[in-house]
């Protein structure tokens, strides 16, 4: 169906007006949009901090800012990017918008919980911003004893993260119940879109892992405020216990970051290759496998932290287990492209970029999972490069792919393809220039979290900083495209990409109630191409 929509048709954007109609909305689509705008704003803030960090690193000395300011900048960059941006962006923003549409429901299971989650998120963000009155400098990892002793506003930040985490938990809970109970008739588990499988696995992790970081920060707070001795050696406590608790959450959380992005790629590839996704069950179950295995490997952040030998060995062994289901997905996506009819429009270009960059990030994982080499590479720029390739080259590219893919559905407008591709070129080049040479920098011994450094590393730092400017330019062009096309973009049809998932059966943008009638599902959503047997 590709008839033009008359501009005065009622949809979720124009049905009601006014601040309170948004602030108190129960419509998952509006909530998703609010999350998206809030989070993308902070993405830019975090990005500016990243640019400033790179700017200081142009010279080996404190030429721009003092040690203290630099340490605050990289800490804030990490805290904002991880807790306010990467963790919630796909699930709470895109997910909220798209999940009920994908499963043929009118809304999520608990709409009031959903809007409450949003405001809890916002309150957490406000608390984090308040902390900037006295910025913290502990790094986003808050290792004790430093974080327990330092005078900066660790307490306030811990509270902010607690609130933001609470929002993740409640959203995850909402999604689990939604996926279990609100699927359209006929949508069995094996007819679920793969994005939903990804979100399902993500939500399980959110629900089980986030409380652990919650209690960890509670313990840190009580140590700071009331003199509890959990992590203080002078009271018999153990700084390593903090690390175990912290990473028990923070490792699974990287799978919270990547699984939804992988789900987006699994949606885009079949549509843009006009072929069924290759290995549906393998991809679906690998999401669960990644989520499960992700809980077993947290110690690989602590190989040189002073753990016992046996623990160190076990964690290294288990770490490699996560590589297998991850590889399964990559192979299946590429196999889907075989003999496809590939449309290289912007969603697909970003999806392919995701795969390309994530492969690099993933292949640098074994260097860190292997004990002998991790000793050398831990806490160096190699690690910084690895996680930027997997998180930015992975999740953020997946986000960009999803934004380009669902932009027509969310806004009712098409993006300008030329501008999109121009932005993409800058982003691809800028990203690689910034981060690839960090692998070598790290191998040569450049430690992370250093405001000043030995002169011999300067030329590589200059390359990375210049790369960051190219990357920033690309992102600005992309945002320009978004903003301009919201107002001036070509009107979007209901199904611009000729996709088979349910969201494309609604108008662009959808009406508040999503579907006139709840659809009945008779086939899986990847029936592209000529089938030998015609029925479902």
């Amino acid at each position, binding site marked *: 169906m590709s008839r033009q929509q008359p501009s005065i048709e009622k949809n979720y954007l124009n049905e009601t007006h006014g601040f309170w109609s948004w602030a108190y909305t129960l419509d998952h689509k509006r909530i998703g949009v609010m999350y998206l705008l809030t989070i993308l704003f902070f993405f830019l803030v975090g990005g500016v901090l990243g640019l400033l960090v790179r700017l200081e690193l142009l010279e080996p000395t404190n030429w721009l800012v003092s040690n203290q300011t630099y340490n605050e900048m990289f800490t804030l960059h990490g805290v904002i990017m991880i807790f306010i941006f990467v963790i919630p962006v796909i699930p709470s923003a895109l997910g909220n918008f798209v999940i009920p549409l994908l499963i*043929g*429901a*009118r809304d999520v*299971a*608990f709409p009031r*919980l959903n809007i409450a989650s949003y405001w809890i998120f916002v309150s957490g963000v406000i608390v984090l911003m308040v902390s900037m009155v006295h910025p913290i400098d502990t790094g986003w990892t808050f290792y004790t004893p430093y974080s327990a002793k330092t005078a900066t506003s660790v307490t306030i930040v811990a509270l902010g993260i607690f609130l933001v985490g609470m929002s993740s*938990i409640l959203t*995850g*809970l*909402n999604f*689990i*119940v939604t996926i*279990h*109970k*609100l*699927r*359209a*008739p*006929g949508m069995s588990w094996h007819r679920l879109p793969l994005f939903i499988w990804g979100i399902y696995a993500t939500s399980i992790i959110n*629900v*089980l*892992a*986030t*409380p*652990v970081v*919650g*209690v*960890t920060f*509670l*313990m840190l707070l*009580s140590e700071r405020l*009331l*003199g*509890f*001795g*959990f992590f203080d050696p002078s*009271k*018999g*406590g*153990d700084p390593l*216990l903090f690390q175990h*608790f912290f990473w*028990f959450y923070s490792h699974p959380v990287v799978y919270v970051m990547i699984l939804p992005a992988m789900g987006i790629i699994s949606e885009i590839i079949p549509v843009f290759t006009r072929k069924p996704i290759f290995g549906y069950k393998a991809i679906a179950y690998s999401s669960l496998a990644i989520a499960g295995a992700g809980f077993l490997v947290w110690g690989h952040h602590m190989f040189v932290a002073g753990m016992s030998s046996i623990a160190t060995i076990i964690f290294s062994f288990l770490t490699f287990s996560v590589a297998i289901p991850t590889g399964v997905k990559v192979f299946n996506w590429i196999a889907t492209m075989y003999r496809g009819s590939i449309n290289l429009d912007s969603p697909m270009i970003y999806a392919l970029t995701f795969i390309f960059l994530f492969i690099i990030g993933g292949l640098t994982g074994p260097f860190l999972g292997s004990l002998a080499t991790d000793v050398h590479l831990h806490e160096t720029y190699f690690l910084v490069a690895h996680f930027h390739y997997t998180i930015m080259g992975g999740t953020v590219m997946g986000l960009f792919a999803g934004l380009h893919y669902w932009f027509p559905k969310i806004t009712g407008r098409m993006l300008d393809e030329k501008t999109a591709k121009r932005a993409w070129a800058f982003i691809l080049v800028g990203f690689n220039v910034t981060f690839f040479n960090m692998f070598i920098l790290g191998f040569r011994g450049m430690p992370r979290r250093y405001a000043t450094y030995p002169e011999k590393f300067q030329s590589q730092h200059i390359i990375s900083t210049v790369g960051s400017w190219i990357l920033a330019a690309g992102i600005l062009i992309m945002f320009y495209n978004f903003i301009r096309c919201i107002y001036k973009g070509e009107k979007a049809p209901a199904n611009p990409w000729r996709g088979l998932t349910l969201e494309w059966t609604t108008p662009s943008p959808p009406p508040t109630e999503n579907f006139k009638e*709840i659809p*009945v599902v008779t086939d899986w959503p990847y029936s592209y191409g000529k089938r030998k047997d015609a029925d479902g």
Partner: protein
Amino acid sequence: MAEYSEKKAMASEGTAGAFEKAKLGIWAFLATELMLFGGLFTAYTVYRIRYQALFHEQHLHLNRTFGAVNTVILICSSLSVAIGIAAIKAGKLAVLKLCLAITLGLASSFLFIKYLEYSEHIGNGELPSSNLFFSLYYMMTGLHAIHVLAGMAALTTMLLLTNRGAFSKEYSTPVEITGIYWHFVDLVWIYLFPLLYLIG
């Protein structure tokens, strides 16, 4: 087709599916609470193994009588909630109201006794910063007490809603959900009591 309408019902647009949703929701929420307290139980285990003598010596400073009384109080409060829910499912509003009130009363007594205990400890100079045992004691019972308060807030809301006639034989989902939550709060204490007060 019968199959079709059955599946359509699955789309839960009315209150028929609401209970299903709510039940799954509260169990998912309890999973998060399990992980929250699980962290503290893990810390307890780690330090207990490391400092056996300290834990043995310090745990004797806890008031077992108060602890035991509190355990009985919470178990009775779970009973009263269960009776209340059975009552509303049979349409007996008055019994539900009474049971909710009793539960709230018992919960308040629990908190009052905890207040007495804490005062006693603080008077003896047994503070969270004194040693690891007391850090864990205050942290675990403190977090539990916060959950008791949250449960009381939910129970009070249920009582107010019952007064307004929100519940009936057909619809009592929020009360049942609150009951499940309250049982969990009780369960956590049933683990806390022996671990902190009894094991030497």
